[in-house]
């Protein structure tokens, strides 16, 4: 089987996976105990008004009709309206997703730049004090829960010294998002809010590429071609970055896709701690108040980000490593 048919097959799998996630999600939310309408319908409402409202949400139809309508809407990216605020779910997503992306991408770029560099160095200088201290730092960073580090940072820098804001993305009275997303991002106030959560996340995510890069370097360094490079009289620095590091980068690609999955999942916690109005926090709140449409919509966004990244990682893996065969 050639590369082209692999791509086609993998794309089909992508679609099937998305469908499966959607289906499971549909089932899960309908298994959830508690009446979703109890949050929208006040007790003063008449029975008639209540029934009409339930009818308008389509909650009285047989499950399979609800299911097909759900799939149909999924394809056209119509996630319905929030039970809670009556806003279309796509609007809710459009409001919260960029906030999460800014935070996550900032943290990820910092984490991978530092993590890969330190990983290369610690693999190269194996057995040195530098290696030991980086590995221990990386392990510590990955061992303490991010939300806990977030709490401590808030306690020390927020509550005690008052250097960073205690919550949110913008200060009250600065206009927030009414001035447009990009205008908001490029203000000092936003940066001040971004620093703490981004730094906490970067510190946590840094450990993963670091450790993987280090093991991968150790593996590559024991191969013969490194000796050949030495025999050719190449400079150590050239061998380290041009030959060893480039070959060691391969596992980082799948690792990064997996890590970004964890990042999206973990966004729930860091956003809760810092009250960052992102999509993860919104999802939790929607689950807690049984707001199916918003919970489903935000969950599908989180899930499809991961699915799509895994898809890209798979394609990249086959492209970058000629030893991979498509059979």
């Amino acid at each position: 089987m050639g590369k082209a048919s692999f791509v086609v097959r993998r794309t089909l799998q992508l679609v099937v996976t998305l469908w499966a996630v959607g289906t499971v999600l549909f089932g899960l939310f309908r298994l959830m105990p508690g009446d979703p309408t109890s949050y929208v319908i006040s007790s003063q409402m008449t029975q008639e008004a209540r029934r009409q409202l339930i009818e308008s949400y389509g909650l009285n139809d047989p499950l399979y009709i609800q299911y097909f309508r759900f799939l149909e809407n999924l394809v056209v990216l119509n996630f319905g309206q929030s039970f809670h605020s009556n806003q279309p779910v796509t609007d809710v997503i459009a409001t919260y997703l960029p906030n999460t992306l800014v935070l996550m991408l900032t943290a990820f770029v910092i984490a991978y730049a530092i993590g890969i560099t330190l990983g290369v160095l610690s693999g190269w200088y194996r057995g040195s004090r530098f290696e030991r201290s980086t590995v221990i730092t990386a392990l510590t960073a990955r061992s303490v829960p991010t939300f806990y580090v977030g709490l401590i940072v808030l306690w020390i820098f927020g509550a005690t010294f008052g250097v960073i804001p205690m919550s949110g993305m913008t200060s009250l009275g600065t206009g927030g998002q009414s001035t447009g997303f990009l205008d908001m991002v490029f203000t000092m106030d936003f940066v001040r809010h971004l620093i703490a959560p981004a730094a906490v996340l970067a510190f946590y995510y840094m450990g993963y590429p670091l450790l993987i890069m280090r093991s991968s370097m150790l593996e590559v360094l024991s191969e013969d071609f490194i000796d050949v490079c030495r025999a050719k009289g190449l400079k150590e620095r050239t061998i380290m970055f041009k030959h060893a590091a480039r070959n060691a980068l391969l596992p980082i690609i799948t690792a990064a896709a997996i890590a970004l999955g964890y990042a999206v999942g973990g966004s729930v916690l860091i956003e809760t701690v810092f009250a960052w109005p992102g999509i993860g926090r919104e999802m939790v709140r929607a689950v807690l108040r049984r707001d199916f449409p918003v919970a489903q919509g935000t969950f599908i966004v989180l899930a499809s980000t991961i699915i799509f990244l895994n898809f890209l990682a798979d394609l990249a893996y086959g492209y970058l490593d000629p030893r991979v065969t498509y059979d």
Partner: protein
Amino acid sequence: MAQKEQSSQSIFTDLDDASTDAEVNKWQRTFRLWRETLREHWGMLTDELSVKLSMLTVAGFVVIAIFAPYIATHQPLVRQYQGDAGVLIDKWVEPSLLGADSEYLLGTTAAGYDIFSQLVYGTRAALMVGIIAAVFTAGIGTLVGLVAGYYGGKVDDALMRLVDFLYGMPLLPTVIVLVAVLGPNLWNIILALIVLQWRSTARVIRSQSLSLRERPFVKAAEVAGASDWHIISRHLAPNVLPMTFLYGSFGIAWAILAEAGVSFIGLGDPNTVSWGTMLQASRAYSALSFGAWWWFVPPGICIGLLVISGFLIGRGYEEITNPKLQ
């Protein structure tokens, strides 16, 4: 029968055991091989200082968990006093360790629970979640990974689509939804974690066994007519065991972290004390702003200590079984 056994022993003593039943023989030999490998590794593992310290830490937590009722000074879920109606925060008792005049080592929470006792009992929840989840995730993941990698084709496809699907589910949000559906208790959190977490072990083990399958020693075994199970258990499994243990000990860490996270969000088991629920309570009562660090610092340190021990044991094991890394 006996004669046959004797003759085969004289020529193939290193290949065959005394038993004549080939089926049992294979299983026994596999079991013995694994046991020997494990014993050998255990000996080497305990040589390293950081691993030894980590094991002592874990052992210490295990002791605390077992003897929790004797160590704890109060009942963790019994209010030590009743606050005035509507006033929650003024009944805050400061820790006696800091010189305050009270009978509570780490003070009490704003709702009147003894923090030290909660911390001690929290060990039980953390260890239970960590160990049970890790054993199942590493076990299921390894088995699936080996089978998928070795058989390839349709089997691999089916299993990996399942793994892909699970990878499409973000960890914490899925656990949150599952726990919301199943009900917030510790067993449901463990179950939700197992359902999702075996995916990473399966994927790594599969990619390892994919490349192992192409190695000469596996080809040689195939040509020699070895059965599938023989190749998987004796040629592939021993080679991926380090990864299994690595992911197992990382699994402990991830499970403890995830439980803490889910509890922190407010979906923890209301009838069990865990370090996550302690942190959640401290945040709910704004312990941060009041500077009541003795409430929220200790649970985090405990989580960190236990999790880093898991990571260090895993790494120590990885270095031993993969001499290239040393």
